[in-house]
C-alpha cells in the first residue's frame, strides 16, 4: 500500500502519474473500501481467479476488488467481476490478441438473470448510454482489470489505432421482459434463475433504424447492414452480434420466427461475394477459411460466420425502431459464466 495525502486531488494526481487509471477521476481504493467489497464473495482474498493476458498478471479476488473500488463499483458488484475475469481468461476469448491489437475491440459485458434487477442494471432505454451506476462502473472496472492486471497500457501494449469509447465502459443487461424469446443465458444452457455474464470482443456499435413492419423486410435490411467488406467477420468467419430493439424482435416473433430461424435467415442473406473484399483481405480470407470453404474465388459467397448459430442475438433497449449491429473481433468467441453469489446475496436474490 502507498501512503498519500487524503486530499482527492492529490490521490488522483498520484494515480494519473503512475498510469493506474483510465483518464477519468478514480475512487481511492482504501483498505476499508476493499474490505467492504470482499464481504460479497465466499472466496478468500488471495484466491487466484485467473491470469490476464498479455502480461499474465495474477488476478486474485483482492486485486479484482481493488480495481472495482477504483472504478466506483458498489461492493455487491464483486461477484459479477469475478465471473467476468474468469470469462475473459478462457482461451476461446483470445484476450492476448484483444489486448494488443491495432483493432478497436472492447470487452462488452452482457448480464442476464435476476442479478440484473438486483444491481439495477439498465437493459432498457439508453442501456448503452450514461445514467446507470452499475452499467457504467462494471464496464469501467473491466477495463481497469485489463490494464492494471493484464498490463494493456494504451500506447505500450495496447496498440489500438483509434480505440473506441466502449473501451472506457461497455456493459448492459438483456431486456428479458421485453424479449419474445428465451434469454441469452437460457439459450446457452443455464437455468432461468441463474445469473450470468457474457463477455464479447466488440468492435463497436452500428445503429440500424428501420420502420420495417414485416419480418422479411426487417431481415433484409439487417443482413444488408452486416455485410460490410472491411470487417474481420468475413476474413475469419466471425461471431457477429445483434442487439434487437424489443419492437423489432416482436415483429420477427409475430411473423412466426424463432431466434434460431432468424439466425439461419440472416446467415443466408448476409453472404457476401468474395470480390467485395480488398485484394489483400481476400488473400487473408483464402488462407484463413480454406479448410472450411475450400478454394475461394472472387465469386465465392462468404458466410459471415462458420455456422448460423455463431450469430448471437439479444433483445435490449427501450421503445423505438433502433436495433444495433455489433461486429466482433473476428478471432474471438464470446464466453458466458455464472455469477456465483455470496450466501447473503443469494438469500436476498431468492426473496
Amino acid at each position, binding site marked *: 500500500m502507498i501512503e498519500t495525502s487524503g486530499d482527492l486531488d492529490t490521490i488522483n494526481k498520484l494515480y494519473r502519474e503512475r498510469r493506474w487509471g483510465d483518464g477519468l477521476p478514480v475512487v*481511492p481504493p482504501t483498505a476499508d473500501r476493499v474490505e467492504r467489497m470482499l464481504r460479497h464473495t465466499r472466496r478468500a482474498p488471495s484466491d487466484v481467479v485467473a491470469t490476464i493476458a498479455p502480461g499474465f498478471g495474477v488476478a486474485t479476488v483482492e486485486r479484482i476488488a481493488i480495481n472495482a473500488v477504483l472504478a466506483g463499483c458498489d461492493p455487491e458488484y464483486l461477484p459479477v467481476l469475478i465471473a467476468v475475469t474468469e470469462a475473459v481468461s478462457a482461451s476461446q476469448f483470445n484476450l492476448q*490478441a484483444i489486448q494488443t491489437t491495432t483493432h478497436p475491440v472492447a470487452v462488452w459485458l452482457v448480464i442476464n438473470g435476476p442479478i440484473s434487477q438486483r444491481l439495477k442494471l439498465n437493459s432498457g432505454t439508453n442501456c448503452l448510454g450514461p445514467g446507470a451506476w452499475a452499467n457504467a462502473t462494471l464496464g469501467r472496472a473491466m477495463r481497469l482489470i485489463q490494464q492494471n492486471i493484464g498490463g494493456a497500457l494504451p500506447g505500450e501494449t495496447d496498440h489500438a489505432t483509434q480505440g473506441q469509447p466502449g473501451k472506457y465502459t461497455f456493459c448492459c443487461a438483456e431486456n428479458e421482459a421485453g424479449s419474445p424469446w428465451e434469454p441469452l443465458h437460457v439459450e446457452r444452457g443455464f437455468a432461468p434463475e441463474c445469473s450470468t455474464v457474457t463477455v464479447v470482443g466488440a468492435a463497436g456499435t452500428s445503429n440500424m433504424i428501420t420502420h420495417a413492419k414485416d419480418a422479411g423486410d426487417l431481415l433484409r435490411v439487417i443482413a444488408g447492414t452486416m455485410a460490410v467488406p472491411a470487417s474481420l467477420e468475413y476474413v475469419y468467419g466471425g461471431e457477429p452480434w445483434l442487439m434487437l430493439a424489443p419492437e423489432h424482435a416482436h415483429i420477427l416473433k409475430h411473423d412466426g420466427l424463432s431466434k434460431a430461424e432468424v439466425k439461419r435467415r440472416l446467415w443466408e442473406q448476409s453472404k457476401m461475394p468474395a470480390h467485395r473484399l480488398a485484394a489483400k483481405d481476400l488473400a487473408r480470407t483464402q488462407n484463413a477459411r480454406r479448410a472450411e470453404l475450400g478454394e475461394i474465388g472472387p465469386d465465392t459467397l462468404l458466410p459471415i460466420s462458420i455456422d448460423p448459430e455463431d450469430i448471437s442475438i439479444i433483445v435490449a433497449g427501450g421503445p423505438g425502431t433502433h436495433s444495433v449491429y455489433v461486429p466482433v473481433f473476428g478471432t474471438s468467441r464470446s464466453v458466458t459464466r455464472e455469477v456465483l453469489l455470496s450466501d447473503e446475496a443469494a438469500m436476498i436474490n431468492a426473496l
Partner: protein
Amino acid sequence: MNENIFVFNPTVPRLDGSQHLRHALDKLTGKVVGFIDNGKPNFNYLVDDIAELLVSKYGVATVIKRRKRGPSVPAPDMMIKELSGQCDAVITGSGD
C-alpha cells in the same frame, strides 16, 4: 489539512523481467528449425527466403514450415506440439 491515508496499488508485477530463454543454440549446423508463418500475405515468401539462407549459409539440416489461420489466431496446440517435438528452434514473427 487532510490526514495521510493508505491506498492500494491496483497493478500486479508484470512478467517482463522474469522472461528468459529456455536454452540457447551454440550453432545452427545440423539443427532443425521451424517457422510459424502468421498467415499474412507475402510472409510465406520471407519464410522461404530465410529458410533457404539457413540451409545454404548456416548448414541447417531441415526447415519445417507451418502456417496459422491468421496473425491474431493462436497457433493450434497440435502445431505447437509438432514443432516443439521436432525442432531445435522455432521462429515466429509478423510480416506483411
